[in-house]
């Protein structure tokens, strides 16, 4: 039987942040995830915003950790080479009813210790965002709301953890957790492995209730809440420069419009409660509601410039709220549940909180002096200066071969994405790492080339190249 100090179940945002945090200690850590790639499920579909927590419920664990997490992003994005920008958010009020809610929202921000929220007049907001509905009466400005590349955040944390010695077992599903004398003993997988572990952390996100039930701690259930989004072309003429948030109602936080870190416009999300955790369909009605709602704030929004639509699931739980638990009657087991729309932001603070909790509850671990916090990113050709581009091509001519013309992604980048730590093995994994296929032609031109490169670099037949998980093969083999 394999032995490890800590098993983390789930390599999403929280699991990857935990892996990196634990890799700062002299510990043997194993991350197990059912997906082909890290961040392969709900962590890849979100609003890509790093929140301040200004609107969280004051006094909750979620509020505490989101508020604590926000300032950490300047450092972590620099260390891991993750695109990130503090563009700020605005919360414009367009009628009296909304206007009257502003003091309540500002007070809530103060209760959450987000003290830099400011009032803005309608005139000031229009100056900041000329595309706003001109009937804007005033609103709030939340300067530290930020945007990030959510794929590279998760990939970056996982990669850095792996570089610091954490083992990743991907495409592997945990099927059971065994318990002995009131302590966790081992984790069993669908590959027939049994891994003995002193600590097991349930960071399974959407499926954390199922994992919790293995140890009889499933006293809650996950109630997925779907959010659908539009991505608009980088060339769309109606643009915003901040995150434009609606004033929340009792029912929903509403639909926003913001730039992505790579210059597209993001519009959405819906909020639809589901029973089926695999329901990742966009719907005509859902998409129509986004257009209707956001155009009230930004009347000129050009939905017809959409290049793609996607939906993500928030791993909401019932009873509600972020919960991080250890149990008197089950030593070594940590349960993380209710990681919802603030989960991407919260992940880095959740990781610190959990590790501290474990240290207080029996984890013996020595701090490492040789932890390397730096991840060398893949060069982003489109962001380089001409001089840097020349230098790169001189060293490796594959950086002179543009494969994805929409996002100006080179063969060199794609090869780097494939061969680096926790490298890409699928078309989607390449796309999330270097953006090939993320542009306006959505892989129409580069898709066939990416398939060829993956096949060549990995030495596997073309018909085995997949979009993501097994069963998602891109093609069916050679012609007759």
């Amino acid at each position: 039987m394999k032995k490890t100090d800590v098993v983390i179940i789930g390599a999403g945002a929280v699991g990857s942040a935990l892996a990196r945090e634990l890799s700062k200690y002299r510990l043997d850590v194993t991350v197990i995830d059912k997906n082909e790639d890290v961040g392969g499920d709900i962590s890849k579909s979100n609003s890509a915003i790093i929140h301040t927590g200004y609107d969280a419920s004051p006094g909750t664990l979620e509020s505490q950790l989101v508020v604590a997490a926000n300032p950490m992003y300047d450092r972590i994005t620099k260390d891991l080479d993750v695109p990130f920008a503090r563009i700020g958010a605005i919360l414009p009020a367009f009628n009296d009813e909304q206007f009257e809610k502003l003091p309540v929202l500002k007070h809530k921000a103060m209760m959450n210790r987000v003290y830099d929220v400011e009032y803005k007049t309608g005139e000031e907001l229009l100056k900041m965002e000329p595309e706003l509905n001109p009937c804007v009466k005033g609103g709030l400005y939340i300067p530290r709301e930020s945007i990030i590349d959510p794929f590279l955040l998760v990939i970056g944390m996982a990669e850095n953890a792996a570089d610091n010695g954490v083992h990743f077992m991907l495409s592997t599903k945990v099927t059971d957790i065994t318990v002995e004398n009131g302590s966790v003993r081992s984790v069993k997988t669908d590959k027939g492995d049994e891994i003995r572990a002193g600590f097991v952390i349930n960071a399974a996100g959407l499926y954390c209730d199922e994992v919790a039930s293995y140890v009889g701690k499933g006293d809650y259930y996950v109630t997925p809440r779907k959010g659908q989004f539009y991505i608009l072309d980088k060339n769309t003429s109606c643009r915003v420069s901040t995150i434009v948030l609606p004033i929340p109602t009792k029912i929903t936080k509403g639909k926003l419009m913001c730039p992505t870190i790579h210059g597209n416009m993001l519009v959405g999300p819906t909020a639809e409660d589901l029973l089926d955790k695999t329901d990742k369909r966009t719907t005509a009605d859902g998409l129509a509601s986004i257009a209707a709602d956001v155009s009230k704030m930004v009347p000129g929004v050009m939905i017809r410039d959409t290049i793609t639509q996607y939906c993500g699931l928030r791993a909401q739980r019932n009873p509600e709220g972020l919960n991080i638990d250890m149990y008197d009657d089950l030593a070594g087991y940590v349960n993380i549940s209710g990681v919802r729309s603030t989960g991407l932001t919260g992940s880095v603070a959740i990781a610190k909180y959990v590790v501290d909790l474990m240290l207080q509850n029996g984890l013996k671990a020595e701090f490492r002096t040789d932890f390397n916090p730096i991840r060398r990113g893949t060069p982003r050709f489109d962001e380089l200066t001409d001089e840097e581009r020349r230098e790169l091509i001189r060293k490796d001519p594959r950086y002179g071969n543009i494969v994805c013309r929409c996002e100006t992604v080179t063969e060199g980048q794609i090869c780097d994405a494939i061969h680096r730590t926790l490298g890409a093995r699928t078309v989607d994994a390449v796309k999330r790492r270097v953006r090939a296929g993320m542009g306006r032609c959505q892989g129409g031109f580069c898709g066939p080339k990416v398939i060829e490169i993956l096949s060549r670099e990995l030495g596997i037949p073309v018909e085995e190249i997949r979009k993501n998980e097994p069963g998602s093969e891109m093609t069916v083999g050679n012609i007759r």
Partner: protein
Amino acid sequence: MQGKTYDVIVIGAGPAGLAAAIGAKENGAGSVLILERDATLGGILEQCIHPGFGLKYFGEELTGPEYAGRFISLVKEKGVEYKTGTMVLEVSANSVCAVNPEDGLVTFSAKSIVLAMGCRERTRGAIAVPGTRPAGIYTAGSAQRLINRQHIMVGRRVVILGSGDIGMIMARRLTLEGAKVLAVAEIMDYTAGLTRNRVQCLEDFDIPLLLSHTVVEIKGNRRVEGVVIATVDPETRKPIEGTEKLYECDTLLLSCGLIPENELSKKSGIVLDRTTGGPVVNQFMQTNLRSVFACGNVVHVNDLADNVTEESLRAGKAAAAFANGTLPQDEKQIPTVPGNNVRYICPQKLCRGADATLFFRAASPARNVTLSVVINGGQVIKKNLLRVNPGEMEHVDLTADQLATADSVTIDII
């Protein structure tokens, strides 16, 4: 790196770029360079292995690669220089910045430039087909590349959304390769592509064409497992509830329109036509940046490569004349105006001192119509047409004399 200086640089080596380079070289351009992003010359023609090319230009039927081959030979014979595997990153009035593995980043100078980047396909995302996001969704052209150039089969049971020419041609191609094409669904009540493709690619192979139908949902979490097709109201083009039918398939191809690829043009400040999506040009295929010309599908999407060739030879000739300082210039260019049932006219502007051929498309299909060309309120051409179809481009010729005192030219289909 500072590259050489050329009389004419052509961006793209598809039918448009090849013809433009030849047109330039045959009409007095000393040095001509073609920059092509793909590994070979020929552009999309290289994957169009079906016949139907050259009927108009050569008077014989050729395949795409054969048609391209003739121009590639000419390019080589005439001493046109070319670089393949070379992506252009930026264009200005007299320079082109490009990148490839051998030269790295290079800036070439040119007296005139011809844009011939072609077009791209409208995607599933652009038309926002709801549903899951599995593997097995391809634009018709990507599938064509995979099958004809990489010899990789995309699927076994196929539904095609949209009746563009490539979609219909791929319906036949996939059938010949042993796939079952269940249906071609078209949201309009007429086919988008050529009549000959409807007959030869769909009817001859008994492939059902569902007019006034669209895909309302894609099913399958990993690979496509099916698509739901519904009838649409011909007026509103909205799906009619209760008409949904599931087609179990592993592949969905999209042939829902082509979009001129003008990211370079936009960045360089070239004015685009909102309807065509391509640069506003005059009869010399000259853009608002006087030294920059454009031709082929980057200007407006053509239905025949032969038309692209003719238009591009003219563009090349004009670019050479510009490089040599002999292109007539008319400071006050006059507009062409799409009138009744005309979607667009190309060129959008005319210099009055020269003959011009005006290409245009009907906005909707019609039979037994009158084509009318009006200059300054007076009808100069009146012609009866048996039928017009948005999928088939029409043209009229105007002489320099007719245009001499014109303030505008209007075309109506009544």
